[in-house]
């Protein structure tokens, strides 16, 4: 199922609508790569509120997406991981280390704003 990506100022918001197949995840990865390049976005929010399962493949892919987007100058934050899903993920030992997480869209935007402010204060865009 295709994931719609919206532009909101400096940020992109990708809202997952339904269960994602492997192909969907890879498609999302490519879409985001394109758009970040196209709009020079500083931040990307991936909203996974709707997902009832985040397995090892999804975790791997999300981390890969975040890593790739960082190389293109954008920070990624995953929002909306549900309590049950978080629970199952940690039991499997799946972590989103290196990727920002926030409760929901609102928090996600606040997170990106904080990061942007910090980066501005340091005078450079984060590239590590």
């Amino acid at each position, binding site marked *: 199922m295709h994931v719609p990506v919206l532009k909101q100022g400096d940020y992109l918001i990708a809202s997952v609508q339904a269960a994602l197949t492997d192909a969907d995840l890879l498609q999302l990865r490519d879409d985001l790569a394109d758009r970040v390049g196209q709009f020079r976005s500083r931040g990307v929010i991936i909203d996974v509120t709707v997902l009832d399962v985040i397995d090892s493949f999804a975790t791997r892919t999300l981390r890969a997406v975040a890593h790739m987007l960082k190389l293109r100058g954008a920070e990624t934050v995953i929002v909306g991981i549900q309590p049950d899903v978080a*629970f199952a993920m940690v*039991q499997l030992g799946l972590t989103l280390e290196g990727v920002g997480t926030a409760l929901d869209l609102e928090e996600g935007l606040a997170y990106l704003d904080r990061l942007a402010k910090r980066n501005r204060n340091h005078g450079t865009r984060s590239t590590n």
Partner: protein
Amino acid sequence: MEREARIDITSATDIVTARQKGRGLAIELGFEGSDLTVIATAISEIARNIIEHAERGQIVLAPVHQGSRRGLAIVAQDQGPGIPDVGQAMQYGFSSRKGLGVGLPGAKWLMDEFDIETKVGKGTVVTMKKWLH
């Protein structure tokens, strides 16, 4: 109302089908909340395991009873290459949890019972159970 479900696993899209069916059956059995997610995730991992190692296989979901306990059994079978060293494949210490490609050990961690029978060159059968508490 409760019935067995069997899903052929031949491609990645079947992974989603398998776990959705698993979730449905689990709901019928009376599972709730995080148990549903745990079951669906375990099915996802195990189905993925089939695709990655055996290319094709089957998942059977069935209600089970033990005394007054009720639960769900998940059997994943394939005619793949088998696992030469099960002990090693199932290694799962806290510090070795890197969270990537957890497959079998991860599924074992999630479920209440876990049994694996495998023969090199013949295939693998993984049986997992989750009980209603």
